[in-house]
């Protein structure tokens, strides 16, 4: 029995060169991406809650958008940002953008200009980009008192007093909702400082990595909604009825997931057979 071909096969599988795994994965992601098909994804409760939070805003309310990611997480967070901005602008909500990852802000700004143009919104009147100030905790705490303490001007140096969009917007008191886009620990600071100290309403779009960590905040009611990963982005796109890159990436996701599931099953079969016979 010891040298049966079946055992030999599984032993070979157990010591499979991982480069073969890499190659199969590459094919599984690249091919669906090139075929370019995607179908709407039904929403799950956390995404629905995030949507509802934005939906609860009225025309003229202020939504603060925080860009807390950089290019590395853009594939996941950009589609969400687009959807959230579309949602806000379609309801005539004022958008105030800022960010805690300096280098991500140009990305956020480009998205803001792009979506604002779709809805004929005017810079300074309907939306503004405050830009970046160093020291995220310091910035968050200062805004609880007076936004103009820390952001005397917008990203290109125009004083806030000259921007109609900032009329009556002085502190968190005047911001109906914070929508943060997070790829790291900044979300913890938003919750542990801004929410805990000022009771700010907030909802987040996060990378799929950060999402599980944000679930306790959601359950505790510290945050109102959660859009997690590319699937969350696809769900949000479905909710606002405007499909984009989130939905488009889902077929590749599907195949990659099935492949990894296959690998786990195969790995376990190999483990099972070689252990029993060995």
């Amino acid at each position, binding site marked *: 029995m010891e040298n049966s071909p079946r055992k030999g096969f599984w032993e070979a599988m157990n010591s*499979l060169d*991982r480069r073969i*795994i*890499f190659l199969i*994965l*590459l094919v599984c*992601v690249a091919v669906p991406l090139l075929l370019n098909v995607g*179908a709407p*994804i*039904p929403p*799950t*409760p956390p995404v629905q809650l995030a949507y509802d939070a934005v939906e609860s805003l009225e025309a003229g309310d202020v939504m603060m958008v925080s860009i807390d990611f*950089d*290019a*590395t997480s853009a594939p996941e967070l950009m589609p969400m940002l687009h959807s959230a901005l579309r949602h806000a602008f379609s309801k005539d909500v004022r958008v105030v953008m800022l960010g805690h990852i*300096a*280098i991500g802000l*140009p990305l956020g700004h480009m998205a803001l200009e792009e979506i604002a143009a779709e809805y004929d919104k005017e810079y300074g009147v309907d939306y503004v980009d405050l830009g970046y100030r*160093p*020291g995220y*905790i*310091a910035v968050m*705490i*200062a805004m609880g008192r007076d936004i103009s303490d820390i952001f005397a001007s917008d990203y290109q140096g125009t004083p806030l007093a000259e921007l109609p969009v900032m009329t009556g917007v002085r502190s968190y008191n005047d911001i109906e909702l914070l929508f943060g886009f997070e790829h790291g620990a900044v979300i913890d600071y938003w919750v542990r400082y801004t929410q805990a100290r000022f009771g700010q309403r907030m909802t987040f779009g996060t990378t799929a990595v950060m999402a*599980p*960590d944000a*679930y*306790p905040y959601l*359950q505790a009611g510290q945050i109102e909604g959660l859009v997690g*990963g590319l*699937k969350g982005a696809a769900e949000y796109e479905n909710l606002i009825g405007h499909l984009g890159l989130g939905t488009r990436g*889902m077929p590749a*996701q*599907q195949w*990659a*997931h*099935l*492949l*990894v*599931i296959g*690998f*786990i099953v*195969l*790995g*376990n079969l190999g*483990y*099972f057979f070689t252990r029993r016979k060995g």
Partner: protein
Amino acid sequence: MKRSVPLIITFLTGFFLVVAFFVPHEPFGELEQRLLVWFAIVSGFTMLLGIDNLIRSHARRIARTNTGWGHSIVLLMGLVVTVVVGVIGFSRLGSPFHIHSPFMFVYTHVIVPLQGTMFALLAFFIASASYRAFRARNTVATLLLISALIVMLGRIPIGAAISDFFPAAQEWIMDVPQLAAKRGIQIGAALGAVSMSLRIILGIERSYLS
């Protein structure tokens, strides 16, 4: 002097930060803000120490023509060019981070692809890790494996097509057992962090001063 002054500095900084949290009255209320700015400034200077160490060690490699000294030249060239274009961007456009600054060219076409691709390696490593590491060795490992499988299936459209069970189970696992354990771990870790912070402020934990 060599040990007691740092211990006093740590004690005062930590202690006043805690006091400032509870006392809004001047001068405490604004102290937290001020100290955070100071912290950022002090951290900024330390960057020079790191750069100095990097340059010295690679200059040494080049001088001794150790193995890989050619790569050290590439490293130092990259460093110098980046700093130079940053300064050019500042002097010409007022900020190295201006959209037309040559510094942003380096950022967009060198740093972003390198960063993004290093990050994308994870897709491959997660596949190889799941092939070799997710083995049903015992009950606990089996549970880990099953919950991973359910969540993966619940996250993709085909899971919902097979059965409504998968997306629902995925949400439930994330909402209940996943959340419970995360909360337990984090409460423990938070207490550990508080305790460590307290020992530091009181000068009991002083490994950072050895």
